[in-house]
């Protein structure tokens, strides 16, 4: 368009100097809450699913199994002493 670059630079500087229009923080917080409310429920990650499986299934079974095995061995060993 053949416009003077310094004129453009001056105009740009004037535009950049305009104050930012700010939203009331309370309105902004309300907007965020409303949007988060329609956000789909968080999907569980693979790692946290594995961790939950470990904590709720594998670990209790391992502990119970170890204790039971030890008790059986202890009873058998004690009874062998009196035989």
């Amino acid at each position, binding site marked *: 368009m053949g416009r003077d670059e310094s*004129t453009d630079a001056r105009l740009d500087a004037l535009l950049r100097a305009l104050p*930012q229009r700010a939203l009331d923080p309370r309105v902004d917080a309300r*907007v*965020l809450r409303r*949007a*988060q409310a329609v956000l*789909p429920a968080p999907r569980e990650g693979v790692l946290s699913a594995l961790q939950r499986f470990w904590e709720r299934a594998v670990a209790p079974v391992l502990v119970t199994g170890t204790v039971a095995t030890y008790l059986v061995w202890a009873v058998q060993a004690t009874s062998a002493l009196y035989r």
Partner: protein
Amino acid sequence: MIPGVDTMRDAVLVASLRGGDPVAFGRVHATFGPRLYNFLARMTGNKERAEDLYQETWIKLALHASRLDPDTDLGGWLYTVARNLARSERRSEKARPATVADARPEHALDHRASPYDWASANQTEALVERALADLPGPMREVLLLVVIDGLELDQVAQIVDLKPEALRQRLSRARAKLAERLDELTRQTRANVKE
């Protein structure tokens, strides 16, 4: 690329948003919120409408979060939605009768204000604000996105759905129109002060 936003962080945020993470959503909102609102406020020239469109933009992101592409440019996505909402608003605006409040953009200084008002206001700022508000929407949006928000031309071209060369031309015309309007307003102001 939006200034102050890096691609790596964008990718992590998109992955978290896809999983419906509200904390990530909050981070995106904190990063882009102020710039988006500023853009919408100047596109609509009306606080209430800008707030409505701002809310609608975030609701759209929330509803669309799980379907975002992993390489989504979040800033570009949000600006595109906000810009399209403002554009639809402008169209429906044209369809309804104008009111006195609509004729005067928010914060724009009335050019018939008294010399006292001129003295108390930041005159240059008010004139630029008014000149910008008087530009046609397509010209205003490119100035806002390129000059005020500092987005790259390629990104803006995608947001406003133009080829980069066409965007450069529109930008040039917008600057010329802004300068012209600014001159007119300055002359009117000087004439009013002399009266």
